[in-house]
């Protein structure tokens, strides 16, 4: 493999050819903020918060999609870069509810973290902002399109499984919105509630309904568990507060198989001190079901019953 050497903020870094500037910086321990970047899904280059200054290049390129080349000079916190990042954060905040105090994502939100880092106190611009109704029509995922920054990670992760592809970008320009087919609430769509989208959302636009109000992120202890429902081995996190297990959330999908609802419900039953009742969609409506039905164990149980 061939290597290239570049300087980042004056420090020489050597990386394999083909490495992005973002990854080179991360390898060198240099911080660059990102919203839309996710190493596991196709690159997108849309949020522009990761721009850097590279003398000789037109404008400020996005580091997540710019390849490091031999002799390149990169500046990650130059005045132009900082001005750009602050302005982008102000623009995002100007079109985002200022309700951090009650937001489920408080403490685990990139918008909040970066605003803190770049001391962006307020939106900075006054004008029209999004005003969509809250989508709270299913028992698992709460969607707040007003908090969405359109990074598209949910879309790209959902579309990674072709027969899911439940959501996509809809409309255009300022009216762009993440939509289901015909822009219905999620509960009326073909969503299977695997939760891949929730795990990648960097802000409070997607949240777990079963966890709502259960505690702040910093109050939670986390423990990785591997799902053994099938042999793909998806990883989930068990969240506990004050020694009590309160929720199970997906973390990373196993090879070749996506996260699924059944696996997560099974883990809830297994780990939670007080598992919430499971719901499944029946004739287009969500209905509370037995654990046996939720986990698809009815046939097996029936057989066991017969033997007994």
């Amino acid at each position: 493999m061939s290597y290239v050497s570049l300087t980042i903020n004056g420090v020489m870094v050597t990386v394999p050819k083909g490495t992005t500037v973002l990854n080179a910086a991360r390898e060198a321990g240099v911080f660059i903020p990102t919203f839309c970047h996710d190493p596991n899904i196709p690159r997108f280059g849309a949020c522009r918060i990761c721009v850097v200054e590279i003398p000789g290049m037109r404008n400020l390129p996005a580091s997540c999609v710019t390849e490091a080349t031999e002799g390149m000079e990169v500046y990650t916190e130059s005045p132009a870069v900082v001005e750009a990042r602050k302005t982008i954060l102000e623009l995002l905040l100007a079109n985002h509810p200022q309700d951090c105090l009650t937001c489920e994502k408080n403490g685990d939100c990139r918008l909040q973290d970066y605003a803190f880092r770049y001391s962006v106190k307020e939106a900075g611009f006054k004008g029209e902002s999004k005003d969509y109704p809250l989508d709270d029509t299913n028992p698992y995922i709460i969607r707040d399109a007003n908090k969405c920054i359109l990074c598209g990670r949910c879309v790209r992760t959902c579309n990674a499984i072709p027969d899911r592809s439940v959501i996509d970008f809809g409309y255009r320009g300022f009216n762009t919105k993440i939509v289901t087919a015909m822009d219905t609430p999620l509960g009326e769509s073909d969503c299977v509630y695997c939760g891949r989208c929730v795990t990648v959302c960097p802000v409070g636009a997607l949240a777990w309904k079963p966890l709502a109000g259960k505690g702040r992120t910093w109050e939670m202890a986390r423990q990785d568990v591997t799902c053994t429902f099938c042999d793909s081995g998806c990883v989930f996190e068990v969240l506990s507060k004050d020694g009590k297990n309160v929720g199970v959330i997906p973390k990373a999908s196993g090879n070749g198989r996506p996260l699924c609802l059944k696996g997560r419900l099974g883990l809830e039953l297994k780990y939670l001190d007080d598992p919430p009742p499971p719901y499944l969609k029946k004739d287009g409506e969500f209905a509370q079901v037995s654990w046996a039905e939720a986990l698809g164990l009815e046939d097996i149980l029936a057989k066991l019953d017969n033997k007994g």
Partner: protein
Amino acid sequence: MKSLLDKCCEKCTHGPQTPCRDFIKCRKTGPICHDDEACRQKRQNALSDIHLTKGSEKKNILICAGTGCTSSGSRKLVEVLQEELQKHGLTDKIKITITGCHGFCEQGPLMIVEPDKTFYVRVQDSDVAEIVEQNLVGGQVVERLLYKDPNTGEPAETYESVPFYAKQQRLVLHNCGHINPEDVAEYIANDGYAGFVKALLDMTPEEVIEDVKKSGLRGRGGAGFPTGMKWSFVRQATGDKKYVVCNADEGDPGAFMDRSVLEGDPHAVLEGMLICGYAVGADEGYIYVRAEYPLAIERLKIAIAQAEQYGILGDNIFNTGFNFHIKIKAGAGAFVCGEETALLTSIEGNRGMPRVRPPFPAQKGLWGKPTNLNNVETYANVPYILRHGGDNYAKLGTEKSKGTKIFALTGKVNNTGLVEVPMGMTMRDIIFTIGGGIQGGKKYKAVQIGGPSGGCIPEENLDLPVDYDSLTAAGAMMGSGGLVVMDETTCMVDVARFFLTFTQSESCGKCTPCREGTKRMLEILTRICDGEGNMEDLDTLERLGRVVKNTALCGLGQTCPNPILSTLRYFKDEYIAHIRDKRCPAGVCPNLLVYKIDQEKCKGCTKCAKNCPAGAITGEKKEPHTIDTEKCIKCGACLQGCKFNAIYKA
């Protein structure tokens, strides 16, 4: 033999399945495969019917059926003319040819009598009988229908003596308005496909690229990237399949040159694409035309069908083994699809959201294959380059911008229309000599060049030679070549707001700075126009403009602040007047205007009081009236209706 392109006798075997190498040459100077005087004569007769010589008994009436003249009623003229010719038994001697856009849309419908080059303007149905009787039968030009110089009143006998055309150098528009775009024979009679034949039969692909490089041709879509260099990247890219794509998604408000070329000379674009396909090693081409151009799409369909019929497009073209097919893709209404990566992703059937570059289309374009993308005007330049050689082409223009450029001259200028001039002509010449100066003798303020990506050129830069680099240095850009002329009654803040309204509604929404930034810039501009701005807004506009320019994903986003930045650069005083004095110096922004009645001029006819929907005007009959500024809704109805010019805005 009905058409120039038909076979002269049974000896000719040319057809799409059995192609002949010498087809194009044969049709003009043939027959080649056999010697027969009768056949030769047939060819010469067919040619001379297309190229009438001066003094010929036969005449050719050209009627412009471009979009402009059609909407001024040129289709009806054709019908009336046909009837009149029949009445006079002239149908054998006089041919009617429907042409594409002639460029002088302002004066439409246009009618030309060839070979005399007589040029009739604003021809109405009722004029046709007179033209037939006096000119075609009587041999006397109908003077009242000739173009007259607005300053001297001097009539122009031929189109060549019209100042609008005299200073132009029509190289790309050469055929536009002079041939029937729906007949490939006329294109071929005018040297059409000769450049392609030369490339295909006598040159290697590398030699073709070398010639295009030598010509110095740069992309006419806006950015001005050297065309030959782009072609060589595609040629060098590895891939089992390559594409040639033509960007005909002309979306800049104020630009319509691509439309005119497609409507008036579609084969020139096909020929340019064929040459490119041969040069880069592609066998398939797409033309992406915006849906708002139905006539252009229709003409292209006819042109492609005719080229296929005669074996100019298809497999084994002219028995050389070269294959090339062209397909049309109609856009679906999104300005951003004029951006190259958005255009490609749209052809693939997706939302037209731009992709990050690199990889560039030359490496990974349509369906991941190496793709050459140029716009209509660029391709239409190529046949000329091949026919005359890159060296000769490079003699035109300036050091770094070669050839000609077509501009769409619109706005408050006397002669609106399409103008093709050598690169390097001054803006003053374009606007004042060709364009005939400002309407109504008003004072020139600025010209906006390059549409929503461009900027404005004020009075002090009028003598700038127009080329890619000088425009960029002046804070504008060539863009597609839309020139919107503005006078003292144009408000520059309003102009900036107008362009931002456009880019804001056309932003695709993918990247943050463009999606959110255009919205905020527009809101600030609107506040300023409404008299609610403050001085800090100017700093904010500049900062937002700078950040959007620096960080947006695609060319549309990166250039959309230009109209703001350039008006701020040259007309900051107008912004300040809006903010500090709550005054619109040009008298445009309605919230900042007051309508007044000149007490000297008002005759007390009471018309304005009757017209006023708000009941804001009062006064006794035959006494000067007054406007109650509190009640006035600034609709302008009084002003439009006043016969005494007594009402004014201040």
